[in-house]
């Protein structure tokens, strides 16, 4: 049964789409993982949480980075291959809410980083302008405020 199913679906077009999906999602996965992992390790290094063992933090970092980057890369690749504009919809689906949640998490995690915090600003801008619902727009506004405060703190306190 399964062999028959595979044969039926095994076309050049499907294989090509599969390869394209895999390549795209891998690129998104690596990038998202990098940004989420870097941001979370920076935060966990900065926060003083002496009671929590390192192994718990490691598990937290890895699980969070894997889960978020996997979902994000899957969603983005799917939308790109289906040529869908995720921001041009009348009503946000569960996938959209997941997507905006990812953007918010990346904003918060990466805002304190050096140079690559441009990613946080871009994510915050996307949520703010394309959030559709009032809740997402308010959260986007807060995310942009967070970026602005971080940037101004760097500029006014640390910059030379």
């Amino acid at each position, binding site marked *: 049964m399964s062999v028959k199913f595979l044969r039926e679906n095994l076309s050049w077009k499907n294989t090509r789409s599969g390869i394209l999906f895999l390549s795209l999602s891998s690129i998104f996965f690596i990038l998202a993982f990098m940004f989420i992992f*870097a941001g979370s*390790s*920076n935060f*966990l*290094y*900065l*926060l*003083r*949480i*002496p009671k*929590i*063992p*390192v192994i718990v*933090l*490691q598990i937290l*970092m890895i699980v969070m980075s894997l889960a978020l980057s996997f979902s994000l890369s899957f969603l983005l690749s799917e939308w790109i291959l289906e040529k869908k504009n995720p921001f041009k919809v009348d009503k946000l689906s569960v996938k959209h809410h997941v997507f905006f949640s990812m953007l918010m998490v990346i904003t918060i995690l990466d805002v*304190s*980083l*050096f*140079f*690559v*915090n*441009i990613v946080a*600003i871009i994510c*915050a*801008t996307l949520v*703010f*302008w394309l959030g559709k619902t009032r809740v997402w727009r308010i959260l986007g*506004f807060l995310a*942009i405020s967070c*970026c*602005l405060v971080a*940037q*101004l703190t*760097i*500029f006014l306190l*640390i*910059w*030379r």
Partner: protein
Amino acid sequence: MNKMKLKKTLKVLMIIYTIAPFVVWGGVNIDLKVLFDHSPNMFWIHLPSTAQIDEINEMVIEVWDEFERISTSYKGQINFNLISYNLTDYQTISASSVVSNIPTSYTFAKVNFGVERLSFSISTQGIHYILATNTLTGKTFWSNPILVDYNPIKLIWGDVHSHSIFCDGGGLPRELYNYARYIALLDFCSVTSHGEFLHLNGGFNALEQATNRANDPGKFITSQGVEWTSGTAPHVPLIGWGHFTSIFSGTKLAHLSSSIQKNPSELWSELDRFTSEFGCRAIALPHHTVSEKYIQDWPVCFDYSQYVRLGEVFSVHGSSLVNPYSEWNVTGEIDQPSYQIQGSSINEALMMGLRLGLVANGDSHDGFPGHSLSHTRAFIGHQYPPTYILSRVSHLYPSGLTGAFVSDITRDNIFDALYDRRVLANSDFGRPYVTFKINDVEVGEDDSTVFVANSTSLRELKLFIAQDGTPPAAYLQAAQPWNGNPNWNAKVQIFKNGYLWKEELINAPVTQLFFYDNETIVGASYNNCIEKEGEFYINEKSHTPVNPSSLNTNGVDYYFIRILCSRGRVTAIGPLWVESLT
């Protein structure tokens, strides 16, 4: 209509509000000159500091832009010249009396990528400088000094404190080692990422492997190293005992992290266990000891002289040699306290009785060990290698270098030189040749201790200085070419028992100085303890109670040298301890 207007205004405000973070980000992270201007500004002429007579060596010419980066666009001819000084009265030797085989000229092409290596040999004993004249601009650049004689002891240079992207720095360890070897032209190096990050990210093994792979005995030595960082890690109490960069003599890297060893006693116990299990030795190096955030709690080091043997006096953080509030402070330090905290500097630690040799390292976080660029405008975000933490932003000083006197370039020899304190410290990429002796006992010889017959015996202090002719770098100041010849004016300071004892001005590239002392040997003591809840501490930041009467050198005098060169380059050597036999 009004509603429409309000909506429009709101939209404009929203646009401005959205653009603002991008604008500030651009202002902080983009520097167009750093991005696009790589035009040649100066030559850096590098020679080994020592050579045997007739030995064939390599001189390296690097073309730098105004941010001390390699400039690949230089095309032109360089003419070479040799200036030599004899070793008897340190006067110049006439060119006709010097036998050498140096190239007369070399034409740079774009294929050189801004770096060229040329062979040379010198047959005449003495201190020599190679001068390179840029035929396009007429500017002449001096090399560092090279001592040519029959002495098999080499002076080699390294940086054993730097940080990679495995923690809060930039670049992979192998990239850092490549830079250190081929661009900064170091002889030894250690990438010593923060253990707390390595522990969090599981990076210990990768760092250990990269360090062993980069090791090339005879040419370039890498040492295993890691930094134990108290008070600033996430999983430890807020108590700051200071930071210790640990260097190991073997091929194994200890897993040191303040999230594993929660306090200094656990750190020392782990070093005991590790060194005994793997049959190696370790050095724990206190650094940036006067920075308010990292004030060194010296009493935790008191019973561990087998590990705490050196103090890092210069780095990208500035200088910890003397207290920033003392009258002898010239360099400063980043994050200097707003008030005087006694007992934080290396000089004060020596007064307490610790025996620390003086070394300088990078503590660089920009991925450039041995020649950090963060004191120039090239610390900016878009510089490669990238760093994802702001750590390099606040590093306003050039990285220092440690000179080590060794017989061969091997891991054991270099570790021995560090362990025995046969070292000198320089505040930037410069490589002066300096030796310091008392009664013919050199720094690092006989545990750096001179024994004299009685407390008033005459002590002869002999100092030999061959200054580096390359333009220096200093606080927020990239190296810039000299106008004409280098400025050789320098102030030589001798510190005795924690206080400035003698000072002399020099104005020649090669100088020998003698000082004589027959004052009674009394030793030094630290007398600024404070009392907290019935117990004494070295200062208000310390967490370790002490017995104030034990904070002294036990009647032993000590001397160290600081040389303040023009444009902010500082060299330090010592100490030598003088002990009376009766």
